[in-house]
């Protein structure tokens, strides 16, 4: 299954190594947490980040589907 994954605001270091900085092939029935494992995001960071699938806020247990666009960035104080 092909998806794109982009990290921002300091988390790009986990996705810049992917082809095109974002392309990832994953197994069917993968969840967000599987992707975070694949790109090696440390467990201690996962409670302090916002994760989106196709622009909708999501959780680490969410299932992914073909062509999903995943974006994540660290929690921040405000703008």
């Amino acid at each position, binding site marked *: 299954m092909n998806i794109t994954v982009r990290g921002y605001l*300091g988390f790009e270091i986990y996705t810049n190594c992917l082809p095109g900085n974002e392309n990832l092939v994953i197994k069917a029935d993968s969840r967000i947490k599987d992707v975070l494992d694949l790109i090696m995001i440390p467990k201690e*960071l996962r409670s302090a980040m916002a994760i989106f699938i196709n622009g*909708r806020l999501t959780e680490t247990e969410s299932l992914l589907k073909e062509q999903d666009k995943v974006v994540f*960035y660290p929690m*921040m*104080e405000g*703008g």
Partner: protein
Amino acid sequence: MKKPLIRKGSVLRINLSDETTVKSDLSQNLVRQFIGARGYGIHTLLNELDAKCDALSSDNIMVMATGPLTGTGAQTGARYIVTTKSPLTGAITCANSGGKFPTALRRSGIDMLILTGKAINPVYLWIDEGEVEIRRADHLWGKNCHETETTLKQEIHPNIKVASIGVAGENKVLFASIMNDKNRAAGRSGVGAVMGSKNLKAIAVNNKGSIPLWDADGFKEVVKKYTKKYKTALKGKPNPLKLYGTAATITGVQTVGGLPTRNYQQGTFEGWEKINGESLRQKYLTGPKACQSCPIACGRATKVDEVGYEGEGEGPEYETIYAMGSNCGIDHLAALTKANYNCNEEGMDTITMGCTIACAMELSERGYISESDIGIGRPLGFGDQDALVELTRMTAHREGFGNLLAEGSLRLAQYYGHPELAIVAKGQEFAGYDPRAVQGMGLAYATSPIGGSHMRGDPAYFEILGVPKNIDPLAIKGKAQIVKDWQDHFAVIDAAGLCVFFCVRNLMTPDLEIRPMGITELINAATGLDLTIEELSKAGERICNAERIFLNRAGFTAKEDTLPARILKEPLPDGPAKGYTSHLPQFIEEYYQLRGWNKNGEPTEEKLADLNLKYSLRGN
């Protein structure tokens, strides 16, 4: 038990008409009930100002007040608030700024300045050790904020701190701001125009003296405890605000499809990566800049060398990037940074400035404004970065078309017969979050006492930024309660003299109520008032209701708690929130019930009694 510490003679009242000054004390009861800063401001206006007065007449009153934590060494305890009747909206405004000036004001013995009347000639105030001199400012009139500050430092001493208005404030641009420390702004709703209408060019304060604390050792311990908490929470994690400034926010807003683009005609901007925090850091950042006692340093010192846009200063912050960037269809970071510098130097709110130009761009593209009216030698359209820079200058000077822009987007759009194109709440332009994609924000805009603002309980925290937890920005259920709680607790932060950026994650409870746990500890150590968290929360609610009473007196009712037709009726055409409109009508009734307001949007007698505000029923 040691008596609480309330400074004597720290309220300074200045009648600019007859140049009389009176010093008085803060009462312990006032501090308990209204805490400080924003609380002192609304308390004064509620008791002394006719809410229906002309905001630019000598009848208006301007209050500049610090909080009990301003200048104390508490993290981000650097802020003051300017409260007055707004010439832009006709409602109250309470514009907030940090930097070093507020601390210097407090060090000079002043907790609250109350300015009434109007000086016959341009004047500035010199404040030293609690004493004030009213000095002629003819030689400063016509100078911008940077020149004014430089001149006063040359004349008095390089260490003094200055708040001033630029040419925009002198010209009563309806969204003129008061700038301190050159680039920090009490930005919104035209506080600079009110200062200009009083012929008051600047306030200079000596940066000497100390701020007494009730329990200095205990206070240090509380500060230490929360510094440790902050550092522990960040250990090993990126700190976006420090790395990228508030410009970091654009990533989240674009992601959820709530980035206002081309006067709110779209929710995503194709050029967003050219104007985001990473681009700013890479191209123009010379260093982060911190307000007094701030461990975050979100301020951006920047320098632009590109020909035609050269300059040096601070910014842009996220709100400027949205208003002058995506909302104007401009992805040219140098141009919008230059336009930001113009606003800082001349003293104007970048949000209203950018949004008013965006409104003009749409009016022009739809053929409602002629090319000759605009007078820049070409039609005005989205993406015209040079027009953006030029129009900011023309607005400050009220030159040509700038004279219309100086009135803000609602009056501009009304003038051309299309008020529906002004994206405002209560006449003030929104912050950078489209309420169709960020539903809680719509309720916050509609019910904010100052109109479209994100700083009266900012739902972007939980709808976009993940603090303290993530909530679907498109969801409705439960948000009325959260928005109400956040409005009350942001009032506490403002009243204390703190900045929300540190407070929300570090000094509040880590739940969606964000109760002011750490702020209570700090205020008690600073003042000895022995307040409970509940008392402080109630003070926040009291401030919000007092502001509401002022609005009701000024003629605002439930009818004005609304959003433009574009937001309520036109679905977003793009992005993750495609097809959504704001669900504000579904929030409002529940919100009023939670507030204890009747269907006209007025606090009930029971609510006023509960908040010790029944005295306000006698009116003013």
